[in-house]
């Protein structure tokens, strides 16, 4: 820490702190114009000039970018500092006499009439005063680099290249927002929003947080979602070897720094143009080593966390292999989660003897068989050999292996990680009953975009009772479905946290950001909405989808079944990997004394207890959502949501015992 005295107030600051920040922390006001805490200081306008004295030497410096690195004394209003500031503002007033921010700053220093006659005098109250805030925002904040300067000296102007409208401009409005004089006007916004400024204000709240806070929060501007790899490993949630284990000593080989090195930084991602998180990272100039594109240097979209988590799920810990797999999945139109989870299933079947070299067309496929796994992916695309079999997905493979190879159906159902035919996404849910429900009840199958409750449930222990879990499995799925309805991304909601979020009453819901989404809806439609209104919008759609599934022959309790591997240890090795935790649970919650019992006996006892808890969870959730015990929305619920007018709906519910 370094001692600095500002206007006779002495304080300690960290080395490198700017004088403006030090003064602000001591409650001392220094006027600035081209500075904002949201961007690197530029030192262009010189309005913040102050006088410093360091070992006997007096000097006028700009407070915004002077880094305090040694003891010094600062006078913010010394005679020389004021003279500099006054003349700077006098010259600006001479050139831009009607611009409000210039007049105010000048009046603050006692200047109303400039003594200079400026040849480029501009009477427009919204004239551009060349502070450069817009150029820097577009460069450092939005990474779109569309705005820039033209010329030098007196002819310097802010322009888009060739004075036209640059095709790369995404109309995010950040430049218009930061401009202190209103010199930048947004052209006609094709969506004709009711109140564009309101939307932009809400957007800027999140933009500022992402640019300022992300680096010491999730670092998604650098690593994207891949930042989760080592975190999931730390919390024992990273799927390893078909969800058997939650972590691995090899996880550091595929942690996020490897991907950060590969990702092209500081550019917009291909996802939502103008977004400041830009977390859909890409690996440019990546050389392909297998398959039809061998030797080519390509741009790979990703990898996201799921692709990396899927790789560890196959017992593979090579980031380069993961990127190449990501490339070919995109290239062939295969979802990376489905490919990884079905391959993990194939590998467990191979190690369990259900599959062997003849059945795989000569490929050896234990966990970690990276090259063989890639070959299966190529075969899948060509519709040849074992690729044709694996490409059917876990649900169909289970039936084929029982029919063709006489495999034990119970074992395959336990380890086949699919629900409603969709392969599980890459989180180990064994110790979180709420997330088991989140995956099991999800309308489209085991995908976490409806609910991700592992931390609330397993780590924070915020929802211990069935009723708590049911309430969470109502609010969060409804809230997150709303993003899908609006085509909005959920990351700005809670992948960056406002600094004061912890003081709010429900930090898990991040109320400040939820309010931002209400502003967005009101700004677009001109209609005021509350968070509850948003939930209601989702409930109507969500329940309609459930009833639609019913119409298609699904959508009932039996379809919300989950494989036991997602709810507890299937094999002895799994039990032993967390023996201490399971023995404790048996003794305290299941009242089954584990002492002296064999692992199989303990597994069985644990299983009966956990399967029963899952059933109780379903009951609690169905009840909270206004559904029958068989998981069907009741007529009263449909009426309350106003979706009962659909023709055939009432008959369908009545036919399925949900007429009450």
């Amino acid at each position, binding site marked *: 820490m370094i001692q600095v005295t500002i206007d006779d107030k002495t304080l300690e600051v960290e080395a490198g702190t700017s004088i403006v920040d030090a003064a602000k922390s001591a409650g001392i006001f220094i006027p600035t114009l081209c500075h904002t805490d949201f961007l690197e200081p530029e*030192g*262009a*306008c*010189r*309005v913040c*000039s102050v006088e410093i004295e360091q070992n006997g030497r007096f000097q*006028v*410096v*700009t407070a915004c*970018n*002077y*880094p305090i690195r040694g003891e010094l004394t600062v006078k913010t209003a010394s005679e*020389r500092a004021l*003279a*500099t500031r006054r*003349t*700077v503002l006098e*010259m*600006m007033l*001479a*050139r831009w006499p009607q611009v409000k921010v210039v007049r105010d700053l000048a009046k603050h220093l006692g200047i109303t009439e400039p*003594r*200079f*006659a*400026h*040849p*480029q005098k501009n009477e427009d109250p919204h004239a551009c005063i*060349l502070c*450069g805030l817009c150029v820097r925002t577009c460069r450092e904040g939005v990474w779109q680099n569309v705005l820039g*300067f033209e*010329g*030098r*000296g*007196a*002819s*310097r102007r802010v322009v888009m290249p060739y004075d036209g409208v640059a095709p790369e401009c995404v109309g995010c409005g950040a430049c218009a927002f930061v401009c202190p004089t209103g010199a930048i006007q947004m052209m006609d916004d094709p969506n004709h929003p009711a109140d564009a400024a309101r939307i932009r204000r809400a957007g800027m709240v999140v933009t500022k947080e992402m640019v300022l806070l992300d680096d010491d929060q999730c670092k998604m501007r650098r690593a994207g979602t891949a930042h989760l790899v080592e975190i999931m490993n730390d919390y024992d949630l990273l799927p390893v070897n078909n969800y058997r284990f939650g972590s691995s000593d090899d996880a550091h080989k595929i942690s996020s720094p490897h991907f950060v090195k590969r990702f092209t930084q500081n550019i917009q991602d291909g996802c939502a143009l103008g977004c400041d998180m830009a977390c859909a990272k890409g690996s440019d100039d990546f050389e392909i080593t297998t398959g039809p594109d061998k030797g080519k240097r390509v741009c790979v979209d990703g990898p996201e966390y799921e692709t990396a988590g899927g790789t560890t799920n196959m017992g593979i810990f090579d980031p380069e292999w993961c990127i190449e797999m990501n490339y070919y999945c995109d290239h062939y139109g295969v979802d990376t989660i489905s490919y990884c989870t079905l391959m993990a299933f194939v590998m467990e079947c191979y190690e369990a003897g259900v599959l062997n070299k003849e059945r795989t067309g000569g490929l050896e496929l234990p966990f970690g068989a990276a090259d063989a796994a890639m070959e299966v992916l190529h075969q899948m695309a060509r519709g040849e050999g074992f690729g044709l079999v694996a490409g059917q997905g876990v649900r169909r493979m289970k039936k084929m292996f029982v029919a063709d190879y006489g495999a034990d159906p119970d074992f395959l159902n336990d380890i086949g990680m699919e629900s409603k035919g969709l392969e599980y996404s890459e989180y180990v849910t064994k110790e979180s009953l709420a997330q088991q429900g989140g995956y099991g009840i999800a309308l489209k199958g085991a995908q976490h975009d409806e609910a991700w409750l592992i931390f609330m449930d397993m780590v924070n222990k915020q929802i211990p009772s069935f009723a708590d879990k049911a309430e969470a499995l109502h609010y969060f799925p409804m809230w997150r479905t709303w993003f899908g309805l609006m085509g909005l991304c959920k990351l700005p909601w809670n992948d960056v946290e406002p600094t004061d979020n912890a003081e709010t009453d429900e930090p898990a819901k991040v109320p400040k950001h939820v309010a931002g989404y209400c502003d967005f809806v009101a700004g677009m439609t001109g209609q005021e909405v509350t968070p509850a209104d948003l939930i209601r919008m989702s409930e109507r759609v969500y329940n309609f989808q459930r009833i639609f599934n019913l119409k298609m022959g699904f959508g009932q309790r039996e379809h919300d079944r989950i494989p036991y591997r997602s709810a507890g240890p299937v094999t002895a090795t799994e039990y032993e990997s967390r023996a201490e935790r399971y023995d404790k649970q048996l003794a305290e919650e299941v009242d089954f004394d584990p002492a002296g019992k064999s692992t199989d006996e303990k597994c069985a006892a644990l299983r009966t207890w956990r399967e029963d808890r899952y059933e109780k969870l379903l009951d609690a959730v169905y009840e909270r959502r206004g559904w029958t015990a068989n998981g069907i929305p009741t007529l009263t619920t449909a009426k309350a949501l106003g979706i009962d007018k659909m023709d055939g709906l009432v008959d369908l519910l009545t036919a399925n015992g949900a007429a009450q």
Partner: protein
Amino acid sequence: MPKVTLENLEKLAADAEAARAGMRADLCVCVGTGCVSAGSVALVDELKRAVKDQGLDGELKVTPTGCNGFCAHGPIAVIQPEGAFYERLKAKDAPTLIQKHFVDSTPLEDHMYRDPETRELVPLEKDIRFFAKQQTIALRNRGIVDPEDIADAIGRGAYRGLRKVLAEDMAPEALIQMLIRSGLRGRGGGGFPTGVKWQSCCAAAVERSETPYVVCNGDEGDPGAFMDRSIVEADPHAVIEGMIIGAVAVGASEGFVYLRKEYPLALERLYKALDQARAWGLLGDSVMGTDFAFDIIVHQGAGAFVCGESTALMASMEGRAGEPRAKYVHSVEYGYRNRPTVLNNVETWAVVGQILDRGPEWFASIGTGDVSESPWGGSSGTKVFSLVGNVNNTGLVEVPMGITLREIVYDIGGGVPDGRAFKAVQTGGPSGGCLPEGSLDLPVDFDTLQKAGSMMGSGGLIVMDDRTCMVDVARYFIEFLLDESCGKCTPCREGLTCLNEILTRITEGKGRDEDLGLLEDLGAVLKDGALCGLGQTAGNPVLSTLHHFRSEYEAHIRDGKCPAGTCKALIKYTIDPETCTGCTLCARVCPTECISGEKKQLHTIAQDECIQCGTCLDACKDDAVLVE
């Protein structure tokens, strides 16, 4: 191509010297930009043909060399080793020169230098007053060595300093201490002790375990300055050797030379010298056979004076517009590509080799330096000046620090031509100031000129006679700076605009009394408020002319008169009845044809049509055109 090593350098030098000594004489012909444009390339070819015609090519060697310095009298040839000096040679004079000097061994008198005062012929270069008081270190090889032949340079002692550094395996700290002991301060104008700069760069590199860069600033934007051009054109290997030694001192493996695009000949010679240095093993993976690896890349300045400022130069080398950044953190810590960087001027690099070869004490003994207490003590060594403007002997001079302005302008420069009166000397370029007659006895060094309101700067020394209007000079510099300002910070962009507006009004006779106060306020806001060196010193030309020549400002404002007769709006051109011979030349060149008169009769100018373009003044052979 031989590979230079620690062992064979001396032998190579001795061979080259022996070859030269074997010859009867070596005709050194100046092929600097000035002489080239006066036809010296053709002169070299003709001399070679004349030597062959006389069958003397076994005994006589013709060597094209860099700028000899005495540009006013170019094209120049000096016959070594005797030092006979011939001037204003045309290609057609070649045969007569060879015939008379070597066959008849009688000097070619009408191409010898005639002292303007004594009117006597001065055969030897060393006796000519222009050269007498000079002492060359950076320019020691000028007019002697062939810049495009590395063997010749080695013959003249090139890379001997480097060999010493590498042979004795000097530790960086030891090498840096030698630089500090030598008292060498930056020749680019800043005057920062070079040893101290290398020391802090070395420290930053070690502390952050990063490889630093070494940069040579050849942007030389000051108008009226061509020292760096001449050094690179005359002795590129001196600059290269200096940079390699600098790289050893700070542990750099990459060096950059930033040279102006407006210097095509210097660029061509630098590229050739670098290629030869690489071929002879002085650059690349194994410098002089040791395991030290270093190479140099050239960046061409694209036309921006501000890029002479170190951070703007580095921005330009990073492929960006030349906008400076705040220097609160010096570039020795965070410079090019944010790594520790040593940036020195061409002239500074050019003397480093000598300091190592002949020892820091030898260098400190020259000039007025005394680094016993502090590295900032006084000014050691010599300084190269480009002496230009209204002075007889315009050219390149290298003089020991501490010499007085009077000695430079009169003893070396030969005073003001056409019998006009000396008025002022401008030093330090746009960041410097104008010093009147009263300051002529000031010693020229880093600190004294600074106190007198100017600065030594990079070496431009422009002599002005009584026909130069000081207000116009101030306006000229402000207009130049406004055109060259990067426009990033308010004081410089708007301050220079306002200064230009006021000064232009004054030169048009529309000045007001309170303008002088405004000029001082604007000078102050620039000095304290501007972001970089260009802006901070932009007020100096105005403040120094205001200080030393306030009466001229007042004449413009109060009496609407321009005493020097330059400001167009305030002057009238008339023709002097006594001296006009009626040769009709002025009438013919006048663009508005407002001059009338019969052949051999007095001509008159129609004042209402005259646009004060001054073409008649330039054209008149008999100085009959008067200005008041």
